[in-house]
């Protein structure tokens, strides 16, 4: 080998060793690579990065609600023992929370926990039946895993931060981003009026769309399984693995809510229902054999309409609670 070619080979060898690889951990559940797992890996590359001067920044309050992307800092002026920050995005968003800088005393009892969902009065959204992860995996504690895994991603458009800081002067900064979710399942609506189409593409899961207002729901189109499935129409909702139910209640947990209506057959053409509860949920149960789709609109029930409903019904389940 001539001197120059050897030198070139050596140079090539040097530059190859200087390259650094990035190892990623892909969360594989049940020993299969799910499309969600691959998609989340891809979406992290496609995250749009705003230039520095356009990043929204503000201070965080002990009780706060955040619907805007940006960087949020909490500084404890006095000991704050029970703080919670709610994050909410559009229905087709998922939330990414990244710890930028944290100055807390983990050993002194301080903590920052991210919860995948919302918890209110002990009730969780999405319920344990509707969420893919077991409950303990939905809490991620900064003091345990935050340093090694600074980015937490939610599975739906809502997430929460719980924190406790004992010493004044402790602080932390988080960056909140919204990422696109092509098949939203489990949504909390930001508004009392709107429309949505929920699609479950051949997945065995249950999805809930929660509207925390008393609303009238108008279902425009429901497509469950195949269109001309005569055998299924005989079974009814109880035997069917694919159906849509309308729930009403006064808490966040969909498993503790009262069923207002069950829809087991595909149909076209509006069907409406008024639900006078604090929380109205459209829930789709899917067996995984078919692509199921439901389109609906909702509008806020006025005060007069609510009064009329109270007058008409002998026993209103929502008023009872």
């Amino acid at each position, binding site marked *: 080998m001539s001197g120059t070619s050897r030198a070139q080979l050596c140079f090539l060898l040097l530059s190859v060793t200087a390259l650094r690889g990035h190892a990623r951990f892909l969360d594989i559940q049940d020993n299969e690579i799910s499309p969600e797992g691959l998609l989340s890996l891809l979406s992290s590359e496609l995250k749009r990065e705003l230039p520095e001067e*356009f990043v929204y920044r503000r201070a965080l309050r002990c009780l*706060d*609600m955040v619907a*805007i992307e940006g960087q949020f800092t909490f500084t404890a002026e006095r000991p704050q023992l029970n703080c919670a920050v709610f994050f909410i995005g559009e229905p087709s968003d998922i939330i990414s929370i990244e710890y930028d800088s944290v100055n807390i005393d*983990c050993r002194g009892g301080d903590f920052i926990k991210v919860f995948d969902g919302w918890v209110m009065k*002990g009730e969780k959204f999405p319920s344990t039946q509707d969420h893919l992860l*077991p409950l303990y995996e939905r809490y991620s504690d900064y003091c345990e895993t935050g340093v*090694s895994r600074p980015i937490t991603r939610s599975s739906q458009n809502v997430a929460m931060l719980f924190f406790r800081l004992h010493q004044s002067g402790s602080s932390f900064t988080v960056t909140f981003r919204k990422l696109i979710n092509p098949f939203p399942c489990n949504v909390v609506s930001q*508004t009392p009026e709107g429309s949505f189409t929920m699609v479950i593409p051949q997945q065995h899961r249950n999805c809930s769309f929660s509207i925390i207002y008393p609303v009238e729901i108008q279902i425009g189109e429901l497509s469950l399984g195949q269109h001309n499935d005569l055998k299924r129409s005989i079974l009814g909702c109880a035997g069917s693995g694919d159906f849509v139910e309308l729930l009403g209640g006064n808490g966040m947990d969909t498993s503790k809510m009262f069923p207002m209506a069950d829809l087991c057959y595909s149909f076209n053409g509006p069907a409406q229902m008024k639900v006078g509860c*604090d929380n109205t949920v459209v829930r789709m149960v899917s067996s995984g054999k078919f692509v199921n789709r439901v389109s609906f609109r909702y509008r806020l029930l006025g005060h007069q309409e609510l009064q009329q409903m109270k007058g008409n019904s002998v026993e209103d389940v929502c008023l009872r609670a």
Partner: protein
Amino acid sequence: MKPVPLVLLITSVLLTTHIPLSTCRPRDLSLMSNQLDDALLTRAGDDAMSYLVGEKLLQYLQRNVGAQKAGGVLHLQHFPTARLRSPHEDNSLEELTEFSKRNDDPPISIDLTFHLLRNMIEMARNENQREQAELNRKYLDEVGK
């Protein structure tokens, strides 16, 4: 020194200073959590049943059910980590006491009415729309230049 042995030396130094892939995997907390759960089960009788203790119990029960369902496969996966963690018992005991200290505190949930939640969402939406308008204005100013 000849160039080739020098290159080989540099190569070996660079390769050995690479971060090994194993550190990119998340820390396996399963064994530590098992010890914590044992401690919590014995302590649960002493203290008032806090929400967090309840959650940890639920976690313990769920994992036990999960382990039974998975059968022998799950056990095989846990055995190697059990052997790895035994030298670090002191560390985990420390973490255990910290965790039980946190456990004495009030539960992790928040008592909010829907009315308050709705108002908070509306305020957050207003903030979002205001800032989005501001951002749009900035973008247009940039484009206009």
